[in-house]
């Protein structure tokens, strides 16, 4: 079939037809989600047969809104950010037909959650320095190494994994990318406790883990290129509604300021107002970015948004403690817990302050983001790379 991709009206019609055939209140949620995937209404920009219809990506928000309005079950994207945001686009770009058919449907429906085995104790910002080894053994690979900062590893069924397959060539060239079965023998997940006291992340030890060659994504030695696709898709936000004013951390502080006049001082007043202005500026910037993407004019502005968000979250959560004074000296609970969702504004002021410290480290440190903006947006000279033409095995470690 090679008809033109559906436009907004056609999608509207198809959603209506689908909802008529699958009453959200009378259909079992998983069955509903599977059927929605099979109808091509999961992610409309994906190809037919893989949950989409080859429609423009900008048409997705309207489809989502229509389903939400009809009370359709959701696929819990908050639990499967790695799967939906990173694994799926990578599988789509580099997977074999068989891989796409095997993985994408249960990924989208949320039946199978995903995690990301990228960072290592010795490879954080410099991901390409990673040391987890994969050695070919017939039609499978044997993997040994340690991964870290892995959220959801304890619940994930699958992982996207980057490994070193050739230590004798410079680091970017000797990497290979796999899908790793998290239930395979030799995969050990240990909670990694953070400064908040809880264990949102994990470290993952891989000991003689066997991965069949059919779970390799991309060619042998092409791992860096595949990883780049994954990282480029990290939190590409499109569509959705504009965030309302005073959402997020500033809302907490503004409410505190209004409710507790006894905490107010002139100095803190100006701090609160400055934070309010900066939050509103960041919100409008996000809205402008959303409009750019919807209009099909993506700009580089997104790379600044995460940088600004991290700085703002840290400043505002710190301000909350300062406002509270004596109460700011208290903490709610240091018990090691295993949270299942990430929400920076939950729990308590002390928790919010400490959790925000991760914002400038996770998903690319602020320093690396500044390098990226300086080099890729402003065109400034790159960092001096002393490791460029050196075999990975000869790099100082």
């Amino acid at each position, binding site marked *: 079939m090679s008809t033109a991709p559906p436009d907004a009206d056609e999608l509207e019609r198809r959603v209506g037809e689908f909802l008529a055939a699958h009453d959200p209140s009378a259909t079992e949620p998983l069955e509903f989600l599977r059927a929605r995937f099979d109808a091509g209404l999961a992610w409309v920009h994906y190809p037919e047969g893989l949950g989409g219809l080859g429609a423009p990506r900008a048409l997705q928000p309207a489809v989502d809104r229509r389903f939400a309005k009809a009370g359709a079950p959701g696929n819990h994207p908050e639990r499967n950010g790695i799967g939906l945001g990173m694994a799926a686009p990578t599988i789509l770009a580099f997977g074999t037909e068989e891989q796409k058919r095997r993985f994408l449907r249960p990924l989208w429906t949320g039946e199978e959650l995903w995690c990301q085995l990228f960072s290592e104790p010795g490879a954080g910002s410099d991901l390409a320095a990673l040391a987890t080894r994969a050695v070919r053994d017939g039609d499978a690979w044997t993997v040994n190494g340690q991964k870290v900062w892995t959220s959801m590893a304890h619940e994930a069924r699958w992982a996207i994994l980057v490994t070193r397959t050739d230590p004798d060539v410079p680091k970017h060239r000797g990497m290979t990318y796999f899908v790793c079965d998290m239930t395979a023998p030799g995969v050990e997940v240990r909670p990694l406790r953070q400064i908040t006291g809880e264990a949102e992340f994990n470290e993952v030890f891989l000991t003689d883990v066997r991965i069949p060659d059919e779970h390799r994504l991309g060619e042998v030695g092409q791992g860096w290129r595949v990883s780049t696709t994954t990282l480029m898709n990290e939190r590409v936000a499109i569509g959705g509604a*504009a965030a309302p004013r005073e959402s997020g951390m500033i809302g907490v502080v*503004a409410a505190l*300021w*209004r409710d507790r*006049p006894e905490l*107010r*001082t*002139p100095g*803190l*007043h*100006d701090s*609160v*107002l*400055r934070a*309010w*202005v*900066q939050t*509103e*500026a*960041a919100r*409008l*910037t996000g*809205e*402008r970015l959303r*409009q*750019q993407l919807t*209009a099909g*004019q993506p700009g580089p*502005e997104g790379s*600044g948004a995460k*940088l*600004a968000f991290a700085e703002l979250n840290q400043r505002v959560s710190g301000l909350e403690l300062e406002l509270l004074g004596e109460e700011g000296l208290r903490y709610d609970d240091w018990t090691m817990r295993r949270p299942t969702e990430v929400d920076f504004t939950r729990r308590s002021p002390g928790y919010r302050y400490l959790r925000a410290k991760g914002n400038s480290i996770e998903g690319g440190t602020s*320093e690396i*983001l*500044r*390098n990226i*903006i*300086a*080099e890729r*947006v*402003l*065109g*400034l*000279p*790159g*960092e*001096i790379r002393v490791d460029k033409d050196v075999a990975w095995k000869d790099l100082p470690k």
Partner: protein
Amino acid sequence: MSDLLYSEIENDLRASVREVLDDKAPWTSVLAGTEKDEPYDAALWQAVAAQLGCAGLPVPEDLGGAGATWRETAVVMEELGRYAAPVPFLSASVIATAALMAAGERDLLAGLASGERIAVLAVPFSTAPGDAVAAARVEDGAVTGVVTSVADGMAADVFLVPAGDGLYAVDAAGVRRTAVTSLDMTRRLADVAFSGAPARRVGEGDGAVRAALLTGAAMLASEQLGLAERCLDDTVAYVKTRYQFGRPVGSYQGLKHRLADLWTSITQARAVARHAASRVAAGDAGDAGDAGTAIAVAVAQAHCSAVALKAAEECVQMHGGIGFTWEHPAHLYLKRAKADSLALGTPGHHRAALAALVDLPPA
């Protein structure tokens, strides 16, 4: 939510304005102009206001304007800011025009829209929207009083004077004005004395003045955006070519990271300036009741003032020795940026205004 992007028409308009400015307002000319007695660049004004028709952009066609909106005007402001162009566009084509539109005046407005006349609101340039003004009194159809630090006061041929409860038009020929040595020599101030100057009442005063200053503050944010972009562009270009210790200085993270931060702030300035322009363009500036517009303008001013100033300060610093000299344009941008941050309300003033608007009362 307002449209925060630029339309095709706006992009075309920007290209036309930039072409004229590239030709008539290179920084060498702007710098040379600061040493001359002429209070503004008349040839440039003629080209932008009259020939390109920018002066009457927001004025309805039946009143002699182009029938566009303050959004398009904001794009012109961005470009004028980018060149620190010495023309009375903000004073006449924005503030005075907005005052006359709010007051419902027609005759003078047509002259302003065509660029033939330059009217200026007689208030100190530091006056914020909502500030009490009226330093003059009106008696028997004549105005008396002194107003200091009026932007483009020497360029004006008509003053719009808030006096008593009204707004009055006073011909500049009948007033005594003194040129002020101004921090920003690309937008000069004058002290203006009215002593029994014959005046024509053009409308009610308070509402018109508030609308004029609110519109002015919104448009100023776009000027600050353009100025900040210019400072960033010039600085990035310079640090790529300036070598020290055998490397371009732009390869050092000490500079790269600050420039990345500046770029990020400018993307935010663009969003807030567009938002403020859209709100004002939607016609809400005249109504004191519309808090959304007042909030948008206060946010834009509090943010863009700081960003433009930071950009200009970084421009001077990252140019090193040459950036501190008179022969380099960085000081033009610094002086414009600092003056702009004091104009139409300081960032602190706009934050204080926000406190009332969004219910974050002082201690």
